[in-house]
Every structure is written in structure tokens, then in C-alpha cells.
């Protein structure tokens, strides 16, 4: 029996949903009126409305990318761009409406907050319904709120950084996000402050035919440290929903920012996200990017190493099952001397899924002592699945060292034999090999996420016949 027959896909455990009880929802489709309505609902200042309208114009002008996953079947007129689930954001779980609370209870957010997290944001459709930050961290001057609150309360910071890392002209989906963004996170860490335990945001799509466009901006001042985690799920519908986020990170001199994502969208979500970070002198930015769910994902977290000594690291895990396409990877642009980067990608294709690594390493003209290493490993579980690797390397400097290696394989019979001859059944042996394959990345995740990811992989492998 082939391995694929032994490893059927699990049921998507976050597939439940509650009736759509939004207090306000824009009409289907997108035009200027919808954008004005969103902006008016949020009571935004004029400059933000103008930015949205300008972005909408860009969105109309920009073409779809002519590469990557097939996303031509997205019908922009069939999507709801804004749905407000509650009137007011809450700071206590008790005040969150029951159905929303139950959703997040099932996902396990309040429990996690108690145990592991310094702050939590929970977004339901378009709006952040719950936000909290531990008091001692707030006292140090750390800001962790939704971007709407930031626009109201910290306009100087927002104006200074918003849209500077990813301008609305960057690509079609960044333009769309800039036009209709709603919710997300705003994080500001003052100079020298170390936020030792992670901040977390949780994104949940509940409505059908819905587009979630959260916007995240993280500013880490000189010498600070922050670890931000996001998780995502959605119910299973028969029609497609769209998730198109923009995440901007600024790591000032000596700062370190780590951004971890475990994306576990349901199989009808288009996940088209633009993520980019600027790292200044001696700063470090790390993206840990796990993509397990969604119908099609196109996501390439990137780091611009702007000043000497900056370091970028991207760890990417992709799992594609039936009808899924994960087009993921990473980009690092070396713009200054003595900069270094590492990209590690591990992908698994199963049941006809397509995993693609797409990445770029660029070393600008005259940059001294740039170093980069890219390693891509792919595992194809059955003979229906596909694995692609498209790394791009562009070097214009005589003092750069770039290395790239990639390999594609299946679960090796030798390894299976080794384990089974020691008394493991084939299922446990396969699970162990897959977990071993992902191990170097899983180690980089915070404990509870590592456990979650291991559990997800075990679920995928669970129903195997030994």
C-alpha cells in the first residue's frame, strides 16, 4: 500500500462557524463608497481616507502577478470587504459576545494568554474584538493595540511609519489592503525595552465570501526586543474568502524582532500577504512562517538589510494537501556592508498538493562582506504531488558569498525499514520521519506553537494503516 493511502487528510478541526451577526457590513464588492463607508465607520482623519482612496486607484491600475499560484479566479465583486462583528472592543473576555468568545475558547486563546503571553489581540472578521496587554509591560511604554486605536491615539507614530515599508504601489494586493485595511496590530517597543514573553494576535474569519485585510505595524526602537506571534483559522464554506494582510516591521539599531506565524486557514481561503521588514544597524529580524492551511498562499516575508551589521533570518514551513497550493519563501536584500542572512525552507506535498519555494537574495552594488545561505528541502509523500523550487540570486558585489542548495526526496525506505525493524509500525515511523524533517524549524518556535505544530503533523499522519 502506498504511503498516501495510509495517510488520509484529517478533518479540519477549526471548520465550525457561528451565524453571521455583524452589526455593520458593507455591501458586496468594492468601490469608492465602500471605502468611504469603512473610513467613516472608523471615524478616521482625512489623511487616512485620502491614503485609502489613492491606494484604491493603484489597486485598479495594477495587474495580477504573472507568476506564482493561480489566483485569477478571485472575484473581487463577490467579496464583502468590511464586517464589524461588535460595537465595542473589549478588554475582558467576559464582555466578549458569547459566540465569538466560544470561537476563541475553542481555539484556546484565553488559556494561552494566562500561561504564555504578554499581550493578546483577537480579530473576528474586520475588527479586533479583544485586546489586552500585561500591565507591567504597558508601564514600560510598550504599545500594543489595533491600528485604528493607534491612528487615533498615536497619529505621529502612524504617520511617520505607516506605508513606508510597503507602499501602496508595491503590488496589487498591498494596494487592496491599503485601501480597505481594517484591524491588525500596532506594536511599539521603546528603546532598550525587552518584551520577554511573546505578544500574540489571533485572526479569525467567520463570515462567508469575506475579505480580511488586517494591517500590522511593528516598530522596535534601539536595542529593544519583541516576539510577535500570529495565528489564523477560518470556517469551511463552499465559496472562497480572501485574506490579504500587510505587515510592516521596523527594527532600529541593535533591535531584534521575531515574527512567528502559524497559518492554518481552512481550505477555501486565498491567502495573499505582503510582509516586509527594514533592519537598521546591527538589528536582527527573524520571520518564522508556517503555512499549513488555505487554498492558495502567496507569501514571501522579506528583510531589507539597510545598515551595516544587520541580520535577517527566514524559516519557512509549508504543507500542501489536496487542492492546496503553497507558494511561499523569502527575500533578503543586502544593502549594507557586513550583513548576513539565512533562509531555511522545508516543504511537504501530499495528496496532489503543490508546494513551491520562491525566494530572492540580492546583494547591492559595492556591498562588502555580505553572506547568505539558503537551504530548501522538500518531501513529496505520494506520486500525485508536486514540489517546485525557484530561488533567485542576484549579486553585483565582489565581496559577497552566496550559497544555495535544494533537494527533493520522498520518505526513504531505508529510514522506514530502520524504524520498523525496531518495532514501530509504519504510521508511527512515517510520522517520526516527517517530524524529524521539520525538527530544525520546530525548535525555533515557542513551546506551545511547537507542540501545536507537532500535533497538526501527527493528525495528518494519524489514520495511517500500519
Amino acid at each position: 500500500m502506498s504511503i498516501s493511502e495510509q495517510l488520509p487528510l484529517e478533518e479540519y478541526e477549526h471548520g465550525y462557524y457561528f451565524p453571521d451577526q455583524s452589526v455593520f457590513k458593507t455591501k458586496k464588492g468594492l468601490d469608492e463608497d465602500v471605502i468611504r463607508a469603512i473610513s467613516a465607520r472608523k471615524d478616521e482623519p482625512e489623511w487616512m481616507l485620502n491614503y485609502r482612496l489613492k491606494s484604491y486607484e493603484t489597486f485598479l491600475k495594477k495587474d495580477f502577478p504573472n507568476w506564482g499560484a493561480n489566483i485569477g479566479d478571485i472575484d473581487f465583486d463577490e467579496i464583502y470587504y468590511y464586517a464589524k462583528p461588535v460595537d465595542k472592543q473589549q478588554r475582558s473576555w467576559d464582555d466578549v459576545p458569547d459566540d465569538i468568545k466560544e470561537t476563541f475558547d475553542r481555539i484556546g486563546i484565553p488559556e494561552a494568554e494566562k500561561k504564555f503571553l504578554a499581550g493578546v489581540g483577537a480579530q473576528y472578521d474586520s475588527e479586533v474584538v479583544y485586546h489586552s496587554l500585561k500591565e507591567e509591560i504597558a508601564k514600560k511604554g510598550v504599545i500594543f493595540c489595533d491600528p485604528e486605536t493607534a491612528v487615533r491615539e498615536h497619529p505621529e507614530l502612524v504617520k511617520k511609519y505607516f506605508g513606508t515599508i510597503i507602499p501602496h504601489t508595491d503590488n496589487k494586493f498591498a494596494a487592496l489592503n491599503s485601501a480597505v485595511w481594517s484591524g491588525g496590530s500596532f506594536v511599539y517597543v521603546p528603546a532598550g525595552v525587552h518584551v520577554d514573553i511573546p505578544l500574540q494576535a489571533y485572526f479569525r474569519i467567520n463570515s462567508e465570501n469575506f475579505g480580511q485585510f488586517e494591517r500590522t505595524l511593528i516598530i522596535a526602537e534601539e536595542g529593544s526586543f519583541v516576539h510577535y506571534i500570529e495565528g489564523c483559522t477560518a470556517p469551511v464554506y463552499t465559496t472562497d474568502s480572501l485574506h490579504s494582510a500587510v505587515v510592516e516591521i521596523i527594527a532600529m539599531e541593535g533591535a531584534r524582532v521575531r515574527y512567528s506565524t502559524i497559518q492554518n486557514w481552512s481550505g477555501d481561503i486565498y491567502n495573499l500577504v505582503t510582509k516586509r521588514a527594514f533592519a537598521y544597524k546591527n538589528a536582527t529580524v527573524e520571520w518564522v512562517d508556517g503555512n499549513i492551511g488555505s487554498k492558495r498562499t502567496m507569501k514571501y516575508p522579506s528583510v531589507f538589510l539597510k545598515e551595516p551589521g544587520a541580520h535577517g533570518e527566514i524559516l519557512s514551513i509549508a504543507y500542501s494537501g489536496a487542492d492546496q497550493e503553497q507558494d511561499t519563501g523569502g527575500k533578503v536584500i543586502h544593502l549594507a556592508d557586513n550583513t548576513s542572512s539565512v533562509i531555511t525552507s522545508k516543504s511537504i506535498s501530499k495528496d496532489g498538493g503543490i508546494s513551491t519555494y520562491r525566494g530572492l537574495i540580492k546583494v547591492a552594488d559595492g556591498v562588502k562582506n555580505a553572506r547568505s545561505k539558503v537551504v530548501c528541502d522538500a518531501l513529496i509523500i505520494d506520486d500525485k504531488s508536486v514540489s517546485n523550487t525557484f530561488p533567485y540570486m542576484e549579486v553585483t558585489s565582489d565581496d559577497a558569498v552566496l550559497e544555495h542548495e535544494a533537494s527533493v526526496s520522498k520518505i526513504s525506505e531505508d529510514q522506514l525499514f530502520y524504524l520498523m525493524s525496531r518495532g514501530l509500525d509504519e504510521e508511527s515511523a512515517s510520522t517520526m520521519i516527517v517530524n524529524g524533517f521539520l525538527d530544525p524549524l520546530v525548535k525555533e518556535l515557542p513551546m506551545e506553537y511547537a507542540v501545536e505544530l507537532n500535533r497538526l503533523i501527527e493528525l495528518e499522519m494519524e489514520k495511517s494503516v500500519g
Partner: protein
Amino acid sequence: MANTIIKQKIQEELIVLNRASELKFEKCNWPIPMEEEWRRTNLAKYDMSGFQIPNKTKNESLISEIMDKNNDYSILINKTINSKAVIKLNESGAKNITIYDPSDPRDLNYEDKRLVLNLAEDAAAHFKNKLGLLSLSSFKDSLFIIIPDNLELEKPVIVEFESKDGRDLFLPNLFVHAGSNSQVRIIQKIKCAESSNTSGVLNVSCGDNSNIHTATVSDIGSDSLVFINRYFYLSQDAFLSDFQSASGGKLIKTRTEIDLSGVNADARLYGVLFSEENTQIDMRTVQHHMVKDCFSQATIKSVVKDTGRSIYQGLIEVEEDASLTDAYLTNHNLVLNNGARADSIPSLKIRNNDVKCSHGSTTSRINEEQILYLTSRGISREEAGQMILEGFLSSVYDQLSDSIKSYSESIIMDKIKKNKVNI
């Protein structure tokens, strides 16, 4: 291969194919950077006005002198632009080879006619972009070589294509059919004068259990624009070792595709790129595994200096049926100074899980430790640099068969020796 019924004379059949390509050429647009393969070579930046359907000039009977003094060949063919081929045989077995020069038409036996036409039609099926169509719109500078089954040649077949000056469009096309169990080495040398517009094709069909070594080496004058489309078809148990080197000119863009379509076929691709001054060299290779049990390997090395730029795009593509594929791709680039640029894009597209595929790529400057090692032994820094460059490239040349190595090595090595390496 198409099983065509041929009624007309071969030259008439080929003219039909020329006209078809010409019509398609007129309708076709130049490749644009929106196409992935052309993203880094924007034709809008180059003067493409010389790339038009050539006038139907009478072939000149002027025969250029053959420069080759040594007899290290089995057949030497000189094909100068707009002229008939000059052929010299130097090995008895070579007489069994059919050489067909469309600018010097003659009647062929039915079998050769069929093979010549198949080669031309195969090329038309593969080279569909505007430059490929242009190459096939006229066979004025083309040559067909039919190697019969079981023929083994000791010495190589050398085909020298030469453009006298940059006035006319140069279309050096070489079509080779290698029969079952044949063993040959074929060198295509493309010699372009200054400011030549060149669009050439190499189409090689390797029969069952054949053992074929090919090389395309070019000697290109400054300011030339050169496009070369290369296609190899490998049948069962065929072995191919292919080498190409590129340097000089303003732009050289080559595309090499290998279809491994017979079980147990084995293909090895080697390439050397040397880009200096304002040269842009854009090389694409495709290792296309269509059936099971095939092996392929590509090794490409590039050196860039001054404002030179090299682009290497490599792809290993494994089809669903191609289990037990064993495929490798390595690309090493040396960037000698700031401002020179090397792009490396090694890609994989894998649709079967029972495969061994991997690629590796490195880009760096000359290793300072190696320089220290040599300079501490009394060698000057400049000489040390040259020695390291030679060593870097000779690891590719060492993989080639002796005759191909001796023929092609000097072309780039001489350039490197002439150049000062400031490191």
C-alpha cells in the same frame, strides 16, 4: 518524430517550412520581460532592426579558405555566411555521413530526405518564439548532418559557421541526426564578426544507445547580438555530453533544452560563461525528464568582471511518469569586481516523488585564502588570480572528451590570460 510522406524534392519541402516560419515570424511579437525567461534580458534595450527576414540573395560561390592546419578532425565543414559549404573529409568512415547544405541543393535518397525534414520539423515544433522562427525562415546558412546507425568516428566533426562582416543577418543552424549505436563528437563553432546580428539553432536527435559529444563554442565580435536555441532529443540508452561556452559581444542569449525521452538516457551539460566590459550573457538550461530511469547533470560556471553581467537560469523538470530520476544542477559564479553582476536562478519542478533531485549554487569572489597560499609561494597577486580563475574553469573543461576540450578550452582561457585580473 512525425512520419511525413514526402512527395517533393527536399529543397522544395524545406522552402515550404521556411515560408511557414516566415509567416509566423511576421505575426509574432518579440519576447518581453513579462515572460519569465526574458525578464532579465529586455530586447527593447537592443537594436533589433537587423533581425528581419533575410533577402533571398543568390548564394555566392566565393569559397573562403579553410584555416585549420592540423588534421585533427574526421570532417571539417566551413559554412560562411551566404555561401555554400566547403567540406573536407579526413577519415574513411566519414564518407557514410550525409551532409546536406540547403544552399547547394541536391537530391537525397528517401530515408535521408525523411530524416532531414524530420529535423527541420522538430525544430519548428520547439523553437516557437520570434527568434526561433527567424532562424527557421531561411536555411541559407544551415547545415544538416545525418549520421547512419552503428557508425563510430574516431575524430570529431567540426562545423565552422562564419559571418564575414556584420552587414547581413547570420542564421547559423546545425541539424544533426545521430543513428542508433553511433558514436560521434560534433563541434559547432560560431564565429561572428563585429556588430553581427546572429540567430542560430542547434537541433540534435540522439538515437538509441548512441554516444554523442557536442559543443557549441563561439568567437564573437564586439557589439554583436547573438541568440542560440539548442534542443536535444535523447532516445533509449543514449548518452549525451554537451558543452557550451559564451563570451564577447554585446548580448548572448542561449537556451538549451534536453528531452530525456527514452528510458536510461544520460545527459551531461557543461557551460562556461565569461562576461566582461558591457557584455550580457543569459544562459538557460532545461533538463526535462519525461520517462523513468534517466540521469542528467548540469554544471555551469561563470566569471563576471568590469560591468559584465551573467544570468544563469537552470531548470530540472520531472514529469509524472519519470520515476527513479536522478538529476543534478550546479552553478558557481565568480564576481571579480564591484559593478559586475551574476544572477543565478536554479529551479526545480518535480511531479514525481521517487526521484533524487538537487541543485546547488554559489556566488562569491576569489577566495582570499587561495590567493594567500599562492602569493606566499612567490607568485604575484595578479598571476595568482589568473591561476585560480583557470583552475575554477578547468574543472569544467576536464569533464569533456579530449578533442572537444582541446578545441574549446583556449577560446576562453586565452581571453582570461590576456586580461589583467585585478583582485
